[in-house]
């Protein structure tokens, strides 16, 4: 569903992503981990079509994001780390806007948008302007907009920042449901506990290079960590070793 092949992205002399190879299958929840500045957000921006790769290829649901961007984007949904939305639209209008852009039939929009507002506890404020929404409310609205369009690939960059505990729980359940419906979920996160519990596979990126990947169990084994050690211990061990080798 997501296929990244020898992906390189440079900014001047700086290689933000350096020869990345990845494959995320339908129904999989892939946790993309790494320290600040490792190349996670750059990778997810290339996957979503916001940035173009310097070299290498990225395909989403069989469509090359660089050569066939419209078709690829029709299959994916992306939620950035900062949930910027149009401040002068209401939540209802924003959802209708997304629905119209993705050609979701009007009857379906009118039926499902109120359901989604109910699910995310936005019904009471759905006719207010988004400029009055908090960070968490905007995040919930964006997640609701993803559910409206039922994409084959979902890209999240730090999806739970700003969400209240109840919404985080609901979000985790939804991730599982989306994957069960056959979507490939690609998620950048710093919350290692969530990645350990939710992700079917994780990848650790450092200095633009993928330094570990596999199931949590496989990554632990590769790092020679005990079964009782947490993903956080493994992450710190791997990234510190990598840093030491680079220096």
């Amino acid at each position, binding site marked *: 569903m997501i296929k990244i092949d020898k992906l390189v992205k440079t900014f001047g002399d700086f290689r933000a992503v350096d020869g990345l190879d990845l494959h995320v299958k339908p129904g999989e929840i892939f946790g993309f981990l790494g320290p600040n500045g490792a190349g996670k957000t750059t990778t997810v921006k290339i996957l979503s079509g916001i940035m173009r790769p310097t070299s290498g290829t990225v395909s989403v649901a069989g469509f090359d994001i660089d050569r066939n961007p*419209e078709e690829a984007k029709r299959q994916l949904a992306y939620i950035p780390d*900062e949930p910027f939305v*149009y401040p002068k639209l209401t939540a209802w209008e924003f959802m209708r806007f997304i629905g*119209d*852009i993705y050609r979701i039939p*009007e009857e379906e929009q009118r039926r499902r948008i109120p359901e989604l507002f109910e699910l995310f506890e936005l019904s009471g404020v759905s006719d207010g*302007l988004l400029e009055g929404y908090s960070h968490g409310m905007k995040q919930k609205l964006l997640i609701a907009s993803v559910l409206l369009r039922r994409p084959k690939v979902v890209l999240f960059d730090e999806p739970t920042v700003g969400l209240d505990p109840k919404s985080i729980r609901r979000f985790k359940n939804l991730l599982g449901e989306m994957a069960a419906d056959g979507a490939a979920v690609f998620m950048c996160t710093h919350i290692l506990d969530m990645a350990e519990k939710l992700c079917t596979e994780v990848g650790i990126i450092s200095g633009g290079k993928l330094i570990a990947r596999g199931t949590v169990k496989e990554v632990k084994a590769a790092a020679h960590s005990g079964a009782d050690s947490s993903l956080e211990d493994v992450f710190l061990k791997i990234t510190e070793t990598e840093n030491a080798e680079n220096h």
Partner: protein
Amino acid sequence: MLKIIEMIRILARNKLKSAYNNMHSVRGWELVKTAALGFAGLMLLVIMYFGFHKVLKYLEEVQLIGPILSWKLTGMLLLMMFAMIIVSSIIISMTTLYYSFDLKFLFSCPLPRRAVFMDKAADTVVYSSWTLVVAILPFVLALQHVKHLDYGFAGVYLLLMIPFVMLAGAFGIFFSLIIMYAFPSSKTRDVTWVLGSLSVAFVYVMFRFAEPEKLLHPDSMQIIAQYINYLQAPTAPYFPSWWVTKAMMAWSSSNYKVFAEFAGLLAGSAAAVYAFMAWVCDFFYMRGFNGAQGSPRFRGKRSKFIEQKLIAFAPSLNIPLSLYWKDRLMVLRDAKYWSQIILIFALVSVYLFSIKQLPLDTPSVKNFICFLNITTAGFVVAAIGLRFTFPAVSMEGNCWWLMRSTPVKLETVMLEKLLVSLPSAMVIGLLLITVSNYILEADMFVSVLSTVSIIFITTGVTAMGIGFGGIFPDFRIENIHKLESSYGGFFYMVAAMAYLTLIVGIEAWPVQVHYMGGFSGPWPRWRVAGVVLCTVGFILVNFLAVWLPWRAGVKNLYRHE
């Protein structure tokens, strides 16, 4: 009290340091641009000086009443300036006092509220008055020269301006304090902006419609005694503008006692007003500030937009139509747009009134002015485009990620932005040309030529605006005015001017032929060739003016990261 003064001193020092660092960080192209703009501004002031000098010299030489006339004009000018600073300070204080980016930080610091308030009040006074003080300086220098005074006169003007602008600004600040105290909501700012713009537009239109040029023709007043009475009557005697006028008059006649009286009145009033404001601000300010932090109460309706109804008939147009209704709502709900649209309508009214007042009598001169009017109207459309069309792409701002991650072609985004801007630009362009043609009784040839030209020119400069907006996007911009003075804005205006010059240059020949005998009768070969050449040139220039920036804009947006 001493603590407050100390804190104000620290805040002021911080501002001066920031300004100093800003000036010293200007390098390269930014330095060239600043120097060019500075030079252009200086030239404008020099031109204004010579204009004022001519008027004042003429007035001064009018027998008996000459010296009174020039002081009367000074009084009127200062009264106008006083009114403009009040209106500006109302609009500006709404932002500086309640929405400045650093307010939350300042309130989190151990600063007395009064110090924060006084700091923001000082910002309001400076921002709302400095351009006017500079703009009136050429008048004062011309007055000084005409009345054979030394440079101390200009120095006195600058000194008197300090309490004068403080008093004018205090009106606006106090108005904001009261209105935000009574209606502590962010909606109040929007309403004030619109009302403030209406006031500015009203003052501007009224001033022009009052035909100030008639002051230069004393003979136009029926009874000369009435005219002299009018001149001798003080212009708003209880307003600080008259106190400044009296102080300047006293200084010019070396009557220092009267000067000290009026200067003292100004300084004393300013000190008293600010002491009073510092005393009451604690009571008024925080309630307004707290209210301003809330989001406006707004309940949108869930009715179907006309564009959504159209999508049902043309599903393939879902993307441009969705983008269109989104942008339409964004514009309609933004008070800043409304306030500027009001000012544009004032500008258009004054433009047409000035055309009506032109002292033209012969049909050929009128027709010639109609032809030249194509360039002026085109310039107005381009200038409005610099404010509305050029920033349209950048106005997507932080939400640009949505355009890039959804299945939307960037050509479609640009086309939709063009469709949003073009109708209003076309209305303004056509209004300026057709009404001017009607007023000046243009003949059929010039009427058709100018109308067709403005349709092409409006489309051209609007498409250029979108194209240049794509070449120079800035999605992180906080203040839209910064875009207008950016490199992109500069290049857009240069390109628009070059385009207008080419179009008028191409059209000059057929207009000349029309004047020299018209296109009637049999056409010789050279005339046919000329018309063909001009038509091809016209089409080619229009095509290139649209296509080149458009293509470069699309390419750049796809590359933009």
